[in-house]
């Protein structure tokens, strides 16, 4: 057995059914060994999209997503995708070809130090110098990538290693004594947290991406109902709790729902789970939850106290910790003091329903998003791009289940929405997948229309077209004296014709009610479709200016009932 064959075998033994990749000079041996093999390979049209697709696959399924590229430019094209996965703790394995070992360091053709380049954006990386280690390295990479706080791992495989014969295919142990994630919470800390929760009159839960990663949604719901605390989420936490639930306040932060932003600053006990208090979540950090005792549960000790000073840190896996926390809380039968607050936040939620009914032309993105959201069943997966389209989705789409809302939160990668949808659909072929995107981000990755056509991967692309780089355009209008520099995208291209040229059904949507109709038809039809939805370029999302307290909205927060 040769190195490349060992990679394929080891990947399959880790449960991999599909990889996303793009061939090139230094991975020809690998592709030669893939010839005729039953491991599914999806040929993307740009390596960056292979990484995003692997990421989407990982987030939708909870399994490790695998992408592969050649050395040099192939490898560097993966970088944005790897960084995206790193920032959002998504488990992907990137395999790169490398020039033959004897040429490394000689500036050989298509040589790049991809190990060095990706060092700060991977959880771990290996360069293979011994072909016999391949099975162990792959197994090890899967373990490291998916356990603890997940993250990308890179394996760099020089060309001659792919061709070399193994002496023996075996998982000879590779020891990583320095890797021992803490999964169980410290019971003393958990008891301290219990005392604080018992005392609290206005407790609130902030649920982050960690809750989804550790599959802790059930435990979260139990805790929320037990202690009578409403739940708000971070962007990545969307779906960790059913957003149609009356006690879910939605997303908090710079573009957060008013009810969440107002409530967190009234609370006296903040239970933050699997989140990292990013500046987009907290606004001005000194004025975030100023009166609250903060309990922070996270598997990564480095996140505790990094951005926000914490009163009771608990390091551990969210599911484990929440289970123990609920058990401990149940031991003491005294009543919680938060019944009234729980009711009040519910009525506050009803008071602050954001406006979505407009019946306006050009279409208002709020209404468009609402219609898209309402057309989807709870199993449907929505991926988003980055910018206004993402925030409209975050604000107006109600995710009902974990792993059904996929977005680039930390890195904010434009072009993420469409390729990650490909990965999500490959991972969950039974579920409808909608990629919400914008005209800017979609044009960065539109070549993947060829991929979905060739492989018949049905995806609904909801392109919110405002002919602007909307988010930056909004900032320029609101914060930079309307000096709108380089954010007008003009009238090019004609997205309907673009889609059709790839053989994808494409439809322009520009009148009220048409979005709903188009979505319903697309869902019934089951084929890929590109919806070019023309939206009002001057409709801005309520926002908190950077560095301000999260209750200080810039512009009007329009309410449905007014």
């Amino acid at each position, binding site marked *: 057995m040769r190195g490349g064959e060992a990679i394929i075998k080891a990947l399959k033994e880790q449960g991999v059914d599909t990889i996303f990749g793009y061939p090139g000079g230094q991975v020809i041996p690998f592709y030669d060994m893939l010839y005729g093999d039953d491991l599914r390979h999806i040929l993307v049209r740009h390596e960056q999209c292979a990484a995003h697709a692997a990421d989407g696959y990982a987030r939708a399924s909870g399994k490790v997503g695998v992408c592969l590229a050649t050395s040099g430019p192939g490898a560097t094209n993966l970088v944005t995708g790897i960084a995206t996965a790193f920032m959002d703790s998504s488990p992907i394995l990137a395999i790169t070809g490398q020039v033959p070992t004897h040429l490394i360091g000689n500036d050989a053709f298509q040589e790049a130090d991809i*190990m*060095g380049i990706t*060092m*700060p954006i991977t*959880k*771990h990386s290996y*360069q293979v110098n011994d072909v016999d280690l391949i099975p162990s390295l792959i197994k090890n990479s899967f373990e*490291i990538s998916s356990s603890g706080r997940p993250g990308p791992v890179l394996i760099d495989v020089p060309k001659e290693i792919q061709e070399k014969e193994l002496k023996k295919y075996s998982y000879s142990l590779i020891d*990583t*004594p*320095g*890797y021992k994630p803490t999964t169980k919470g410290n019971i003393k800390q958990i008891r301290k947290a219990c005392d604080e929760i018992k005392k609290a009159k206005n407790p609130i839960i902030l649920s982050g991406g960690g809750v989804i990663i550790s599959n802790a949604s059930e435990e979260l719901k139990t805790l929320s109902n037990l202690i009578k605390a409403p739940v708000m989420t971070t962007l990545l936490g969307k779906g960790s709790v059913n957003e149609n639930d009356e006690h879910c306040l939605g997303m908090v932060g710079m573009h957060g729902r008013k009810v969440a932003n107002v409530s967190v600053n009234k609370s006296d006990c903040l239970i933050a789970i699997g989140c990292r208090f990013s500046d987009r979540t907290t606004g001005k950090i000194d004025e975030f939850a100023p009166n609250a005792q903060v309990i922070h549960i996270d598997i*990564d*000790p*480095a996140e505790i*106290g*990094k951005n926000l000073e914490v009163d009771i840190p608990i390091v551990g896996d969210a599911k484990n910790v929440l289970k123990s926390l609920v058990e401990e809380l149940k031991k003491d039968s005294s009543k919680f003091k938060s019944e009234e607050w729980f009711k009040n936040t519910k009525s506050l939620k009803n008071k602050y329903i954001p406006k979505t009914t407009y019946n306006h032309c050009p279409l208002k993105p709020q209404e468009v998003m609402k219609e898209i959201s309402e057309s989807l069943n709870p199993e449907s997966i929505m991926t988003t791009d980055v910018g206004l389209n993402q925030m409209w989705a975050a604000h107006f789409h109600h995710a009902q289940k974990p792993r059904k809302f996929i977005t680039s939160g930390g890195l904010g990668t434009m072009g993420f929405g469409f390729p990650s949808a490909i990965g999500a659909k490959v991972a969950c072929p039974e579920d409808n997948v909608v990629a919400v995107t914008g005209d800017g981000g979609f044009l960065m990755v539109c070549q993947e229309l060829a991929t979905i056509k060739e492989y018949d991967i049905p995806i609904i692309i909801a392109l919110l077209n405002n002919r602007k780089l909307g988010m930056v355009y909004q900032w320029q209008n609101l914060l930079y004296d309307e000096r709108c520099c380089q954010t007008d995208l003009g009238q090019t291209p004609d997205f309907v014709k673009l889609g059709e040229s790839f053989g994808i059904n494409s439809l322009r949507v520009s009148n009220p009610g048409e979005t709903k109709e188009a979505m319903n038809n697309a869902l019934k039809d089951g084929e890929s479709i590109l919806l070019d939805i023309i939206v009002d370029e001057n409709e801005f999302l309520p926002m908190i200016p950077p560095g301000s307290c999260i209750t200080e909205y810039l512009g009007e927060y329009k309410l449905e009932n007014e």
Partner: protein
Amino acid sequence: MQSHVISTLVEDKPGVLQKVASLFTRRGYNIDSITVGSSEVENLARMVIVVNGNKQVLEQVTKQLNKLVDVVKVKDLEQETLVQRELCLVKVKVKNEISRSEIIQYANIYNAEIIDVCDDNITLEVTGNPKKLNSLLELLKNHGIIKIARTGPTAISRGKN
């Protein structure tokens, strides 16, 4: 701002020093010095890092170091029980017989070893905590220092720890 000495056990593999160094750069921490050598455990090396910063910076540094898969153990050595030693090689100008004997006297006082002599210079080797080294170098300045090579401090804790 305080200077802290962090002792780490790391896997003795290529690229580990780069990973540690790049972590410091990426997070905006300043390394004062770093020394690497083998440790009492096979396949593990000890890195002693001197870093400047407040309590919060130090906490982040240790936590972030711990996150690196190749880093096995991280310990912030306490100032009270800490022993620091550094090695310095210094080449000093010799102008005349008086300066030669003065330099030799200093060497004796500081327990420095004379490792090379030629007609117009002397090379000394001195070990000690960085303050001792600084003080000797200060004295030698008057004679004219030609070259200095310092290792940066390595450290260990006294007693049972």
